[in-house]
């Protein structure tokens, strides 16, 4: 029982690692309807920018975070302005294909610049373990979880209460009306991608400091898809809960059934959700059935 509890605490903490990337996914999908398959690579790229600033240029981690975020925002805006806006009005699959292509490009660029080997981010999260009664939580995981909690809260507050957040929400619920109210839709699209970039970079830095980064870190992040599906593609609150839930299940499956099952489990959830509840657990809008 203690062991189960221990796994559960660890699982919830590691599930929080999915939350930021999943939020980035959802906000882009909500406002632009684009399913961004490059999210994992944006994560990876942000983590490498952080690596470049802190380890290669020795700028220290506060400045490293600022530079990584700035670089990630610029990358996201470049993708949106340079590639996606010209294709607006095209069928969704064209846009989704573009994000797949962009993901491949980012993987290639990271491989060309930083090579294929695993690199470690500086230990800016304290390593010292945290004790909750008899339970021990590894320091990095606990602090990473806390960082995620803070960033996610800030994001949700921004999304709920700021002018820009309200404009984004208005756009996602009804583009035509939003446009009629004088909201510049194109700017909103760019803004959501920029926010997606911020979330991706934060997520990449936190995840990467747990276990190092490689150019294929983004593929690991495909598990986030399961989170997004389960949470409902459009629900901000939903993916937070779904992320934690999937991290928990994944940890338990990994602990009791082994790694191969662990890798497969998120996709099993995807299939189950799709078959029985395509809107996800917290989906806001009706799924169109054919």
């Amino acid at each position, binding site marked *: 029982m203690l062991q189960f509890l221990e796994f559960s605490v660890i699982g919830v903490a590691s599930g929080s690692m999915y939350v930021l990337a999943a939020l980035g996914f959802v906000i882009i999908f909500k406002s632009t309807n684009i399913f961004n398959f490059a999210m994992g690579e944006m994560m990876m790229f942000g983590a490498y920018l952080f690596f470049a600033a802190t380890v290669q240029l020795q700028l220290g981690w506060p400045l490293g975070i600022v530079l990584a975020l700035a670089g990630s925002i610029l990358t996201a805006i470049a993708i949106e302005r340079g590639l996606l806006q010209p294709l607006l009005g095209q069928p969704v699959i064209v846009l989704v294909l*573009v994000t797949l292509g962009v993901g*491949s490009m*980012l*993987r*290639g660029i990271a491989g060309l610049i930083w090579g294929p080997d695993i690199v470690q981010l500086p230990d800016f999260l304290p390593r010292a373990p945290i004790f909750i009664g008899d339970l021990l939580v590894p320091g990095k995981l606990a602090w990473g979880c806390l960082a995620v909690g803070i960033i996610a809260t800030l994001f949700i507050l921004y999304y709920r209460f700021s002018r820009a957040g309200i404009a984004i929400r208005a756009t996602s619920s009804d583009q035509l009306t939003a446009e009629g109210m004088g909201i510049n839709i194109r700017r909103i699209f760019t803004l959501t991608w920029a926010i997606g970039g911020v979330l991706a970079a934060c997520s990449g830095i936190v995840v990467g400091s747990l276990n190092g980064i490689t150019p294929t870190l983004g593929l690991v992040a495909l598990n986030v898809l399961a989170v997004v599906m389960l949470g409902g593609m459009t629900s901000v609150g939903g993916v937070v809960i779904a992320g934690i839930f999937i991290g928990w299940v994944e940890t338990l499956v990994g602990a009791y059934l082994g790694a191969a099952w662990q890798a497969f489990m998120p*996709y099993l959830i995807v*299939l189950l959700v799709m078959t029985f509840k395509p809107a996800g657990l917290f989906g806001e809008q009706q*799924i169109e059935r054919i």
Partner: protein
Amino acid sequence: MQRLFDKMVTRAPDGGSAAAGLAAARPAPAPRSTTLFQVGGWLLLAAALIAFPATGSGYLLFMATLVAINVIATAGLNITVGYAGLLSIGHSAFIGVGAYVSTLMMIHLGTPLIVNLVFGGLAAFLVGLVFGAPSLRIKGVYLAIATLAAQYSLYFVFQQWTPVTGGDRGLSVPGVNMFGLGDKGLYYFVVGLMVVLLIVARNLFRTRVGRAFIALRERDYAAEVLGINVVRYKLLAFALGAAYAGVAGSLLAVFLRIVNPDQFTLLASVFFLAAVVVGGQASILGSILGAAFMTLMPEILREVLEIFGPRGTADVAGILSPLREFIFGALIVGFLVFEPRGLAGLVDRLRAGGRKD
């Protein structure tokens, strides 16, 4: 209602322009009109394909056979993505299904390749139905996610079902000696099959089924109003693409003489998507050009790097694979943005330009 639709599409000129007004941006299938120029071109190509093994190089024969197998797989994905407008990012998993089924039949039943590959294709078709069924009832990019799930689920099965699939080590595939000609025989067989399957794909789009695919790509609702059972046709388009993959997989297995899970990864699926986009969506010529280009591009890149890069040092070694990944991505993005009709579109324009001169 059904008959009305039939009439409409038969009257519509070839190229699916019934829907062209709705989505001018979508690539239109190549025009059917066969000119003398075309016939001559195809004959020349046929002669080249038959005479090719006479070059005597095992390497060129290997690459040519690989291209032909990839053409079959790409043509399949083009049915799903190009014609029916459904995004599949798990194509290589269906290639894997074909490869395993065919190899297992070969090992345990000793049946000939031609039988095995029919069953390999059939198995991939059925597996495609299983994964397509839940997602295709829903509108949007759900199929893409379902195929991603198929990718990981099937990889899991290949890797974990050790008593049957040989697990991580995979299976060694017995050799086949087609027509008593060894590698050349396999080449002729693969190329012959490729031609047959391309003709089938081409003719499919002149039938009611094929036109239905195109109609539903252009607009689900319109197709439904026209009396097309949208879900059924979507499933069919997707599973048919998977079946082509299954056949390609069966061939790949006897060709490489090994089947293991690591051949069927997400990156391999992206390779075929790139082949479809680069070659030209909804185009037979596009499938050929795309598969050939994507298969040969790394080899060409390798030669170029060998000429221009510093030779023989470990320092340049890290470049090829990431560079290739970057180029794959850049090709997908570049063609979608600048030339949505792919290489086939370029060829068309080139030909049109030639006529004007």
